[in-house]
């Protein structure tokens, strides 16, 4: 559906804006998670076909005509994997944020000028 694509791209733009303009490390990670949600919304709404139902075969779906009644299940499966990987990336970024705070006692990104520490 087109509306879902529009909302997803709006979320991606807001997340990019947040990542570029904020200076707090945790705010940057929150912006990343907003981008993540937007991308998932875009992929799922690309796979949606109007007037069809969920690809789970139970009493409500005729088995013989299932190919004509359900939506595309591949984008759902891809997004299912991407959500879990997004959680892992968020946890890794937070671990780095805690480590950087332990080193310099500051969450401001402008205080970190070295290339390694």
């Amino acid at each position, binding site marked *: 559906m087109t509306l879902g694509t529009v909302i997803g791209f709006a979320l991606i733009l807001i997340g990019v804006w947040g990542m570029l303009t904020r200076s707090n490390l945790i705010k940057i990670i929150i912006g990343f998670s907003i981008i993540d949600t937007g991308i998932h919304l875009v992929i799922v709404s690309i796979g949606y076909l109007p007037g069809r*139902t*969920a690809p*789970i075969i*139970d009493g*409500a779906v005729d088995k013989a005509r299932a190919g004509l009644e359900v939506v595309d299940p591949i984008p759902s499966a891809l997004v299912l994997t991407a959500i879990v990987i997004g959680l892992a990336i968020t946890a890794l970024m937070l671990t780095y944020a805690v480590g950087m705070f332990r080193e310099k006692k500051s969450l401001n990104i402008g205080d970190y000028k070295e290339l390694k520490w």
Partner: protein
Amino acid sequence: MANQLFYIATAIALLAVVVAFLRLLKGPDPTDRVVALDGMTITSISIITAAAFFLGRVIYIDVAMVYALVSFLGVVAIARFIERGL
């Protein structure tokens, strides 16, 4: 006739979500925002069940159950963080 009644009920519930969302934007303290989040999720469970009724699939009610459990755990986690730091 009965279907129109369900449409009216869903529209009123949508309005309730929007009104509770205003408190989430406005609330002076994080506790106010968690109260607004709690009200929004309980109303959203009703909207999910109504969507399951309109679309005719019983499988969507399972999503409502997971939604209720997870929102309860999230509210308890945030409240414990406010009280004594998780």
